[in-house]
């Protein structure tokens, strides 16, 4: 059976996601911050975590965005192959929803139309859309507003097989260390390994969406996540770079088969305002 979804429904759903994602963090991120606060030994870092939590309450009470950088709108679509979109083009509907959401809800417009000519598009479009065709008759839309500060600290390297898993660890840790206080720690670290140049970057970005506390189902990957998590937190960058026990709330690793000559590694860093919100139509 083919399910029909009208574009208007998509536009409204995306506009709503823009507001919801920017006002309230997912429960798993909130819990991770609470846990970090409870185990924090450094007084200054603990106080910063308390203020971060205070920010969550104020944002919710006053309907203000958690962060003034309401980000690039990154949209992940899971399109069931039994879905028919009616009333226009799917991508147009997504873009219209983002424009509507950012304009109606007083979110900051942070997108410029050209990388060096830099004229603001004034409605935060274009969103960056990643889509996947899946089984079923649903349309799953995830909106992940991504701030510029943490995105700027991300990195990608085309390692070769000789570097081995030690080379991967070294690159991830070096990226986090060089980022230092800039990406607003405590951070979430998404690591994409394998595939090719663009696949590794997409894996890293998608890794940021995984619930904090989850582990990659593949044992080797889960072990790497744990080791990187320990090593990153031993760097002592801490909350906002002021030191302490927690630099990363989570490290998520995703892997993919790759070419015999290659071993790409992408590290995408998210700030503590690790926003994403999903709706299924």
């Amino acid at each position: 059976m083919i399910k029909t979804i009208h574009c208007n429904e998509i536009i409204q759903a995306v506009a709503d996601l823009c507001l919801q994602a920017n006002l309230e963090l997912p429960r798993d991120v909130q819990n991770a911050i609470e846990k970090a606060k409870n185990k924090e030994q450094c007084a200054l870092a603990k106080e910063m975590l308390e203020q971060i939590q205070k920010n969550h309450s104020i944002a919710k009470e006053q309907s203000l965005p958690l962060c003034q950088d309401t980000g690039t709108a990154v949209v992940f679509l899971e399109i069931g192959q039994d879905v028919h979109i009616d009333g226009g083009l799917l991508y147009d509907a997504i873009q219209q929803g983002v424009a509507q959401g950012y304009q109606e809800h007083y979110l900051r417009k942070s997108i410029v139309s050209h990388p060096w000519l830099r004229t603001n598009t004034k409605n935060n479009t274009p969103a960056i859309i990643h889509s996947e065709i899946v089984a079923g008759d649903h349309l799953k839309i995830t909106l992940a507003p991504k701030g510029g500060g943490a995105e700027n600290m991300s990195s990608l390297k085309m390692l070769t097989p000789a570097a081995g898993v030690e080379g991967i660890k070294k690159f991830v840790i070096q990226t986090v260390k060089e980022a230092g206080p800039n990406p607003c720690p405590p951070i979430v670290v998404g690591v994409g390994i394998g595939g090719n140049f663009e696949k590794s970057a997409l894996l890293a970005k998608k890794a940021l969406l995984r619930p904090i506390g989850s582990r990659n189902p593949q044992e080797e990957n889960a072990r790497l996540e744990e080791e990187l998590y320990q090593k990153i937190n031993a760097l002592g960058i801490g909350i906002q770079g002021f030191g302490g026990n927690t630099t990363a709330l989570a490290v998520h690793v995703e892997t993919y088969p790759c070419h015999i000559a290659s071993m790409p590694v992408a590290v995408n860093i998210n700030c503590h305002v690790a926003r994403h919100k999903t709706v299924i139509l």
Partner: protein
Amino acid sequence: MPISLHTPFETTDLLPLKSGDQVTISGIIYTARDTAHKKMTQLLEEGKELPLPIQGAVIYYAGPCPTPPGKIIGSVGPTTSGRMDSYTPAMIQAGLKGMIGKGKRSLEVQRACQEQKAVYFATIGGAAALMAGCVKSARVIAYPELGAEAIYELEVENLPAVVVDDCYGNDLYERQDQLSSPS
């Protein structure tokens, strides 16, 4: 207890501050980001007047969200200060005394802070609704065409911050590095 500071700053206000001190800042501060800095340093080069009174001034590296109806300002947290590094020594030379942002500064900025007695403060990145609550009044005073990147004059009350680079060449982030670097 945090140290209470009032703008504009005199050198004597800044001399007691040490990297790592917690402070609250009250009074008038000005927002400016990348493009506003580029424009202002150009004015300095041409010997022209700046759109803000620079003597003793405090600049907040921030670009707020649009102001919702009935509110003083939208969310207004700090942006990454390092992007302003290349413009900052000239601003300090012109009289700038305080900067509020987040993240590391260049050696040139740290040196300018030391030589000209200026201070770089960090506030909490991502705590933008909390910061909006510290703003008592806001108005655009220059470059309205830049939108979020315009220069806003903000009257703030008890804006929480931490001294990163003091007047003595100390840097809070570097100190953390030394504390944690493996032997």
